[in-house]
């Protein structure tokens, strides 16, 4: 690990669009809106950007093949070094990781990191696009859907630890409530545990209010090397640790109750950031919550608590904004929305704003100095983790 991070990398600006079920803007236009905002925040112009990294999930959502190339001009990448990264739902946090190595390596002093998703192009429902992610021989002939596999994971997690749905529903209640203070949020709501338990059953134990929505949106961050960041801002937010890890697509061959690959990604990031005791040293975390149980599952995978302990911490209010370990103060995917890659990137933006003390009504109560953002994806097999410090 010592060979990495020769140069310290800072986030110096962030921007995002509204997250909505349907937005009129094209994917390119969404990228531009968010990128322009991030550059303005950083006090830079496009000509100051040396490289661009794009993160965007399957081409099958936008319905544009070579989607990375298609979006390039909106991302400000024209005539610049450019690459697209894609690791399923993990893309949103992996994109700034790819941006980090562009700058940490010494190759570039500035890098624009853009994440976009426009799921509304896909008809009649974006779920159709997910069908082709499954094994064509073992899974598709059975009529598998994305919710099936998450329901299977959720159920296994509940079974192994004896967790009740009421405990999991608290995550949806908290995150949708937090989203009331997020100006870009798609599903901010004041709901109760009973509302979640009474909502439509989709695939038991998954109900309507356990799930994040499909969304259009973009989110962007500006990264800079230390000497550039210090010229431009008095409060840069440093990327001090990055980690990523994948397991195989043989998801029926492993115990789904615990995301070991998330733990591996977290260990890599903690080691790089010099973090020995995650629950004590992480002040605020944005963990991936496309389903409410995933927030708990990921808190455990990230070693922010012991296995099976996350539901109790949630019940005790520890993960609220004014708690000891605030989780998803933004409102998360459940509240703000889930334009896949842009959703993960939104989490990185949120940690940036939290550590700068710019989160306004969403600001966590404690003095947050160290934050974590994490995303997860593919066939329940991928984790990406980033550690940031003010």
């Amino acid at each position: 690990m010592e060979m990495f991070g020769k140069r310290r990398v800072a986030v110096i600006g962030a921007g995002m669009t509204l997250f909505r079920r349907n937005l009129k803007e094209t994917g390119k236009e969404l990228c531009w809106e968010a990128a322009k905002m991030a550059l303005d925040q950083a006090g830079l112009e496009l000509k100051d950007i040396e490289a661009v990294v794009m993160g965007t999930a399957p081409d099958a959502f936008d319905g544009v093949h070579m989607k990375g190339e298609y979006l390039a001009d909106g991302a400000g990448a024209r005539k610049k070094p450019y690459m697209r990264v894609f690791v399923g739902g993990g893309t949103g946090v992996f994109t700034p990781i790819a941006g980090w190595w562009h700058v940490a390596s010494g190759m570039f002093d500035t890098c624009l990191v853009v994440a976009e998703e426009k799921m509304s192009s896909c008809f009649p429902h974006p779920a159709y696009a997910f069908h082709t992610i499954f094994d064509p021989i073992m899974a598709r002939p059975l009529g598998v859907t994305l919710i099936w596999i998450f329901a299977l994971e959720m159920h296994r997690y509940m079974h192994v630890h004896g967790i009740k749905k009421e405990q999991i529903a608290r995550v949806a209640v908290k995150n949708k409530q937090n989203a009331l203070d997020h100006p870009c949020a798609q599903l901010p709501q004041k709901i109760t545990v009973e509302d979640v338990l009474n909502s439509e059953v989709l695939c038991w134990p998954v109900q309507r209010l356990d799930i994040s929505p499909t969304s259009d949106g973009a989110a962007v961050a500006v990264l800079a090397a230390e000497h550039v960041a210090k010229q431009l801002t008095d409060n840069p937010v440093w990327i001090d640790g990055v980690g990523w890890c994948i397991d195989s697509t043989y998801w029926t061959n492993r115990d789904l109750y615990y995301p070991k690959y998330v733990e591996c990604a977290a260990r890599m990031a903690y080691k790089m950031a010099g973090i020995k005791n995650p629950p004590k040293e992480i002040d605020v975390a944005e963990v991936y919550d496309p389903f409410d149980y995933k927030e708990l599952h990921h808190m455990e995978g990230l070693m922010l608590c012991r296995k099976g302990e996350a539901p109790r911490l949630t019940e005790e209010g520890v993960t609220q904004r004014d708690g000891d370990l605030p989780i998803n103060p933004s409102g998360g995917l459940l509240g703000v929305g889930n334009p896949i890659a842009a959703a993960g990137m939104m989490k990185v933006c949120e940690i940036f704003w939290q550590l700068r003390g710019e989160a306004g009504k969403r600001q966590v109560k404690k003095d947050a100095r160290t934050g974590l953002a994490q995303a997860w994806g593919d066939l329940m097999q991928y984790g990406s983790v980033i550690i940031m410090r003010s």
Partner: protein
Amino acid sequence: MSEKIKEYPGHRIKTADLRAGLVPLIRYKPEAKFAFSAGAAMSRFLEELKNGRILASVCKKCGRIMVPPRTFCEICFKPVDDYTYVKDTGKINTYSVSFIAADASRVKEPTIVAVIELDGASPGMGILHKIGEIDWKEVKFGMRVKAVWKPPEQREGAITDIKYFKPLKEGEE
């Protein structure tokens, strides 16, 4: 959003406007079709389903008996050493009950889906399949189940040659 930013971009399209055809859209349906090669191990697996048998692969280095079978062990990163059969019985590792179809529409009869750990395979080696002949409220973790096969003449060498797995009564093999 940073409190420094007062305006945020994006024009929401109302669902009602979309349904009423008030939003200009360009429509397109991809026409591409695919033929996925099953590969050596899975081709054998599918052929054996016609015979009512479930094929697994064996890695002598890590000792795993793997279902679905594969030509290489992804842990030892070497070719598998042998193929064998596992039983068509097993236990439910986890399950779910689906009330929706692939397009997110409601279905009348829920589908019970499960990861089934097959007897004879290494612990934790499961496959995805459906559960039948039981009310969904009666399904339990760890429940013993057995494959219900289509009649031999109806089998086509597909995972659906197993119609579903049904619960085994106590003592039943």
